[in-house]
């Protein structure tokens, strides 16, 4: 009997369960886009180099093109379709919309997912290459424009919307918490311009 090249799995995406049979070669990205009609997650390079396919896996950002769908079973996956609370946009989404933090919009879902997790990483005290004082007791660094730029650099935007994206992330990071408390971090607000 030939070895099986596909498996029946259940993916947990945006709080819903999706049972499906997948080719073992299918990436999480292709499973979302081609099998589950969750096309908000974008394929920019399929090589982990552009960040367009960024989703949250167990709350942390991950490029879904470098994960096999079969390996994502049992994980809590959040895609751009699951970022808003119903009709109410997430503060990051609202800030991108209000401040024009995009142009063509193709990198945007990845930028937004990345920003949502980045704000939480920062609140949890994670340092970045732009952090001056990385001692744990120093606490979260001020979320300056340079900190945002460094932490968002895994997400390319070829239209060059970076200036507005940084402003949008800064605004969202200072926004009131969502009802589920997933954003709304304490930090020192700095103006970008």
């Amino acid at each position: 009997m030939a070895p099986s090249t596909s498996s029946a799995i259940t993916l947990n995406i945006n709080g819903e369960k999706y049972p499906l049979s997948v080719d073992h070669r299918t990436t999480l990205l292709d499973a979302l886009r081609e099998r589950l009609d969750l096309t908000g997650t974008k394929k920019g390079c399929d090589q982990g180099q552009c960040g367009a396919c960024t989703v949250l896996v167990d709350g942390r950002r991950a490029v879904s093109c470098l994960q096999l769908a079969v390996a994502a079973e049992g994980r809590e996956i959040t895609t751009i379709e699951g970022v808003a609370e119903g009709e109410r946009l997430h503060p990051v989404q609202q800030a991108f919309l209000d401040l024009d933090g995009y142009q063509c919009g193709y990198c945007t879902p990845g930028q937004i997912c990345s920003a949502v997790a980045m704000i939480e990483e920062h609140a949890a005290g994670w340092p970045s290459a732009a952090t001056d004082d990385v001692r744990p007791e120093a606490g979260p660094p001020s979320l300056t424009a340079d900190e945002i730029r460094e932490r968002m650099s895994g997400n390319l935007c070829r239209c060059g919307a970076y200036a507005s994206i940084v402003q949008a992330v800064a605004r969202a990071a200072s926004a009131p918490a969502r009802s589920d408390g997933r954003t709304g971090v304490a930090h020192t607000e700095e103006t970008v311009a």
Partner: protein
Amino acid sequence: MSTATTRATPAPAGSVGTARTRVEGRDKVTGAARYAGEVPFADLAHGWLVLSTVARGRILSIDSGAALALPGVLTVLHHGNAPRVDVDFVGLLGTRPDPTCALFQHDRVPHMGWPVALVVAETSEQAREAAETLVVQYEKEDHDVAFSAAHPDAYAMDGVMPAVTGKGDLDAEIAASATVVDAEYTTPEEHHNPMEPHAATARWDDGRLEVVDSNQGAGWVQGELAKLFQMDPSAVRVRSEHVGGGFGSKGVRAHQVAAVMAATALQRPVRVVLTRRQMFTLIGYRSPTVQQVRLGADADGRLRALEHRSLSVTSTVHEFVEPAAGVARAMYDADAHHTANRVVRLDVPTPTWMRAPGEAPGSFALESALDELAEGCGIDPVELRLRNEPDRGPVSGLPFASHNLRACFQEGARRFGWAERDPRPGLRREGRWLLGTGTAAASFPAGAAPSTAVATAEPDGSFTVRIAAADIGTGARTALTQVAADALAVPPDRVRVRIGDSDFGPAMIAGGSMGTRSWAWAVTAAAEELRERLALGSDIPAEGITVRSDTSAAVGALARKERHAYGAQFAEVAVDVTTGEVRVRRMLGVFAAGRIVNPLTARSQLTGGMIWGISMALHEESVRDPATGGHVGADLAGYHVATHADVPLVEADWVDDPDPDDPVGIKGIGEIGIVGAAAAIANAVWHATGVRHRHLPIRPDRVLAAGTGAPRA
């Protein structure tokens, strides 16, 4: 049955000129906006292109047997079984098609990465595996991919402009000049790399070919596909609702043609999506350039001599010229004024338009040379440019429709703090960083092309405007909504603008900074006539009242003038003397680019262009391996585009500059932002280090090798 009319509606304050968030913004931030590869089709099959692994030669054989035996594989198309296409035509833009899109017509391989086959399967995984299984045998020939100024086969080539212009005696004027600059500048091969890879799905729908595509002009692609496949244009429909960036690369390419061939062969929908790596050889690119600039000036900085010669590359299958030497024809006059664009044919893919073709690399050379001249003359670089403002087209002799470069420089210099600048290089040090500032001028042609639009008054009091425009991230959909609202004298929320469908009629593409202007003209014409019709007081029937416009006559009646947008670019850089790293600290661009329809999205577009300039100055470079004839590192790890951490505070603003001959006053802003930006950065690097960098990108190794002319602290 509603019988609403607009008679009672008071004219609101104009929408044009006010900031509005994007009409499709909510769809884009929630992931609901569907791009070409995301529109669902029942019974969809997936195609995967197979590209040549030699740079020149002939296909000896393609063995499809093993591929066809794999699970899910439906067909393999290649030159032995593909339908014939016709490339003997002139398209919408007055050019012949690049034969690269005439897939599988012969056994010749003219460059590395030439499409040789398409594998179609039930899933993309199956198609990809089969494509990698396909055995293609080649008869390999020696290739020539070495681009250099000394290449013996270079020849002058007309493109959108004459190859060569000239007046006056260059040598005599150079000899009579008090200060002379004579330098060679180079720019590398650069790639568009829109974030959304090219994607198309083709299907036959009741005898009609439908293609859902990502492109810069649905009607453009429709027309070219109809001609390629010798069909009546009305039998082809192309839709392109959301487009993830184009920058010149999204016309007819291999993916649409492949999808149409496969959909025809299989009689089911077929999607073909390019991989990022395939995009490096299949979608065009910006040619490398070698540019010689000679300037000669009087002691007061007035130009006596200007020579700009540019060499770029084209392929062996198609002629395309990057007209870098054209920028001087609009910007500066001189007693002796000579410009020439030449090309050399190599065994490489055909280059194409890429954001500000000609102006982007040309302004790097010319505006760097102007800075060198300013240094030589001891004149401030801003003042030097203002002293050389022409009063007529230097080559054409035509009057300028408007010429507001001076206002850009004055406003930009004031805001940037240019007056406090010490012009001497290599003086400012901050730890291991040397600091400097630089400036450059920008210009880009302001044109319009014929378009048609349809405006409908709906019974519910709303309006629908249909035009085959493309919003590739420019904000055109929103801008046209504002333009239509003003022409109808209603609030924008009563206007729905539908774009990206070839069934809406002929229209200009999103290109040449002409899209929004050309479409806005047609939308204005249709909407104004509709408003006049409604003013007569007729009730609106169920099917609405519809007015069509065609701007062919109006655009054709434009008087011949020099028509351009202008800009002044300012940059501050820091150069790390220990690593050679150059970092831009801030950038300001002030533009005279017509009436700004939507300040929110316009600012994004202008700063986006400037960020392209940062990327061009410091990062972007495609390297070709002379041994294989292919690229080294053809991906986003090997080809660097600017990311967040590379981009500092970048600001764009504008001066009042409505186009006097446009109904809305628009000039177009898609390209002016990149023009001069790389030169301003290079000039700032000189100001920081005292060393000229005439070769892009200004990589750390180049900075280290060049050293600094700065006095040691």
